[in-house]
């Protein structure tokens, strides 16, 4: 696609429910990144993918968070048993290759956990 696409744009859920956030990177970009932006905070690195593999999962805040990427394209970030502190904007970015410094960001998913 022309840019990084994220869906849904906004998601409201109840505490304890599972949510899936989707990221569709720019076609051909091999690297994909997930960041979390809490209200008034900077961007917190969560995970990156090189192709379909995720060499570094250390940024995921708890075992309730998981992510996968299939076909070297679309990625899904899953949060199980959501908590109110999970409320944030989740941003996805892609770049042409790993270790390329230029990131292209999507518009994020605003997650609100009630």
């Amino acid at each position, binding site marked *: 696609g022309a840019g990084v696409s994220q869906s849904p744009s906004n998601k409201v859920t109840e505490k304890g429910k599972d949510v899936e956030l989707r990221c569709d990177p720019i076609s051909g970009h091999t690297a994909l990144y997930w960041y979390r932006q809490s209200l008034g905070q900077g961007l917190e690195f969560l995970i990156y993918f090189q192709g379909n593999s995720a060499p570094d999962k250390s940024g995921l805040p708890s075992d309730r968070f998981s992510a996968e990427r299939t076909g070297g394209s679309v990625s899904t970030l899953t949060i199980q048993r959501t908590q109110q502190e999970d409320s944030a904007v989740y941003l996805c970015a892609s770049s042409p290759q790993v270790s390329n410094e230029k*990131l292209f*960001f999507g518009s*994020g998913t605003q997650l609100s956990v009630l």
Partner: protein
Amino acid sequence: AQTVTQSQPEMSVQEAETVTLSCTYDTSENNYYLFWYKQPPSRQMILVIRQEAYKQQNATENRFSVNFQKAAKSFSLKISDSQLGDTAMYFCAFIFYNNNDMRFGAGTRLTVKP
């Protein structure tokens, strides 16, 4: 680990005037990139300017320029002739060469007043 600090949570400037946003970082490495990203209300992060650490010359992009002081680990952004459309959150960011973890500061909310 490298950290990025933006000490100004909020700033304002009159239209057509000049404003400088501060950023400091902490690393013992020599090879890295520095960035300023703009995040308007649409949430999409937009690259404003980038600087390669090995280059002594300060990067410039139209009305945007940086003051890169490598020894002081300082990377400030100057916006000249401020425009209403410059109103946004501005994030300073850092990444090592051949690394996959871009680190962001907490951001500075800039308001341009008419």
